[in-house]
């Protein structure tokens, strides 16, 4: 066979169920209980409004820098909606709706964004990893967790999140390659929000889709409309079933958009146009989902307003609780904790030195 085309074993598909006009492809509609649909709506709305509130708290100097999620609610919430509590989530830093869905109290998010380590604590009943800021590195943790799940004979999955930018990182490659070789129950959810700070998707990689990178690893890959919660749900559900069945990992590219700043330290006007943002605003995942719920008779016209009010009340209560909590935080001695399971001698000495110096420098003043 002198010069022959190599047939690729796997195909890469694109999935959209509820399009940007709210038109539904019934043949693909996932069957999600009404109650869950409403909870998903509520969570998206809560996350969106909370995001806005965080932004205003940040502008008032009441919290530090943080990465808003507006526009990406469906892309990550849709992916975790069918997970069990015992499944593992390995997030990046732009999955707040999923975090809330999994049980993170809003006030904890505020306290964390105010620079208190306490709020990084993961409660014993959640199998989720803390947020991970070094782009791309967390994917490997998901592979290790998935490996361990398989080793222990469990049917759980490890789902990890990352952005389009993360696909360029060497650790992305190593993680996907390991997941293929070891056939572990890992699900890689890429929130392709078109930008990595100021770098547009097209400058991140020359491959036409991110999903097709799966072909390099012999794992399944699919591209979905990331602003379509139903499509994200369906693709993730398929991946989760594949993983639970021992059939290996999946790369899901959710095509979405970061509608706000990269973080509150960023000025997107330097690198993208308002027109582009506007165009994506029309594809808003929340309004689209509301159209769907309304058409299903699950969301009456006035119900949205009621939800909005409920959500705002919830947020206000969380802000109040956070401010209350923070009054009791800040003991600097905490910084010596959790470096090791047991504090080594030398660190104890440093802790004592700190206490002594604090006292002595107070006196000197």
């Amino acid at each position, binding site marked *: 066979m002198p010069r022959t085309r190599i047939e690729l074993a796997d195909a890469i598909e694109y999935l959209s169920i509820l399009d940007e006009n709210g038109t539904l492809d019934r043949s693909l509609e996932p069957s999600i209980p009404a109650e869950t649909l409403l909870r998903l709506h509520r969570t998206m709305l809560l996350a969106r409004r909370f995001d806005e509130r965080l932004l205003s708290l940040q502008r008032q100097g009441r919290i*530090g*820098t943080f990465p808003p999620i507006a526009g990406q609610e469906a892309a990550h919430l849709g992916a975790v909606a069918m997970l069990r509590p015992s499944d593992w989530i390995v997030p990046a830093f732009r999955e707040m709706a999923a975090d809330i869905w999994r049980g993170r109290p809003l006030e904890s998010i505020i306290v*964390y964004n*105010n*620079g*208190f*380590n306490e709020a*990084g604590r993961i409660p014993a009943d959640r199998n989720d990893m803390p947020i991970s*800021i*070094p*782009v*791309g590195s967390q994917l490997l943790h998901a592979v290790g967790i998935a490996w361990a799940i398989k080793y222990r004979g469990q049917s759980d999955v490890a789902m990890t999140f990352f952005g389009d*930018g*993360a696909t*360029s*990182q*060497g650790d992305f490659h190593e993680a996907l390659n390991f997941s293929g070789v070891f056939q572990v129950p890992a699900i890689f959810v890429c929130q392709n929000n078109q930008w*990595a*700070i*100021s*770098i547009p998707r097209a*400058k*991140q*990689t020359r491959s036409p889709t991110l999903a097709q990178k799966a072909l390099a690893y012999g794992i399944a890959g699919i591209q979905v409309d990331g602003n379509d919660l139903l499509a994200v749900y369906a693709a993730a559900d398929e991946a989760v079933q594949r993983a639970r069945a021992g059939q290996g990992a999946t790369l899901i590219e959710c095509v979405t958009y970061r509608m706000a700043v990269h*973080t509150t*330290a*960023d000025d997107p006007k*330097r*690198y993208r146009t308002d027109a582009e943002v506007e165009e994506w605003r029309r594809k808003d995942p929340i309004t689209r989902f509301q159209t769907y719920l309304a058409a299903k008779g699950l969301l009456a016209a006035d119900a949205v307003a009621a939800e909005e009010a409920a959500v705002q009340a919830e947020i206000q209560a969380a802000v109040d609780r956070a401010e209350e909590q923070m009054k009791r*935080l*800040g003991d*600097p001695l*905490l*910084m*010596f904790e959790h*470096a090791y399971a047991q504090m080594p001698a*030398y*660190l104890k000495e*440093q802790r004592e030195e*700190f206490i002594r*110096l604090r006292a*002595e*420098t107070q006196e*000197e*003043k």
Partner: protein
Amino acid sequence: MPKMTMVQALNLALRQEMERDESVVVLGEDVGVDGGVFRVTDGLIQQFGETRVVDTPLAESGIVGMSIGMAVYGLKPVCEIQFSGFSYYTLHQMENHAARLRWRSQGRYGVPLVMRAPYGGGVRALEHHSESRETFWSHIPGIKMVIPSGPRNARALLVSAIRDPDPVVFYEPKALYRAFREEVPEEEEAMPLSRSLIAREGRDLTLIAYGAMMRPTLEAAEKLHSAHGVEAEVIDLLTLSPMDDSLLVASARKTGRVAVVHEAPRSFGPGAEIIARLVEKAFYHLEVPVARVTGYDVVIPLFSRETHYLPGVPRIVHAARQLLAA
């Protein structure tokens, strides 16, 4: 002379070196259209175009590995790692290649790259955005490790780093990016690498610092003078490696009392090497143990507590007074 922030001064250095030498190219994440997340490369892409100011994909090892190839070819890449907390991805390329290609090729290929990265705490940032791990680079034979402490020397050292025939890690104290302005000459100014400076003369004791810690150290020296009548000599290291220990040694011989200040964790930090040099070369002049006023051996806490972690004026003054009391 115009007054500039460190960001403006660094920008000036880059701009002028790029004007002077077309082999200088700038690359990194968001250095182009965005002008860098701290705006150090602001305006460069407008002036020099995207062939010389290159926005790269998100891959630190890639940025440095590619810079090595560019440098071997004869260019002078100045690459930016967005925060030093992500520069560890580049250690392999730096240690195993950048630092060794001259040696491996027995003189044929130098690697005149500069790896710039903001480092250090004090800006209320997220995790991984406040570290001080200059020890990693300082320990590598073949690498030069430079840390400026103000707008003027930042500009003059960056110019030298770019012109240097060897790989230079250039850590920029992000707490000082916009903290104050200094007069910076428009005309070319370079400062030799591997030279420390006496930032303040004194005879009673020696304070050795660098980067962002120079400010509290100098403030502490002022306070020691005004409140206690003590004359502290303050040395600004500027280049950590290869270290110029001549001034340190001379000062220690003169005062016999020395404190080293850095925000890096104490153990295996730069202070240890300074103490070792002083022991080797000024032991018999030391009156009291050299003190280390440093970060603790823990991860720098999230920002609500970081001032407790960072050495500040009170800790430096206190250490100095203890040295004098001993």
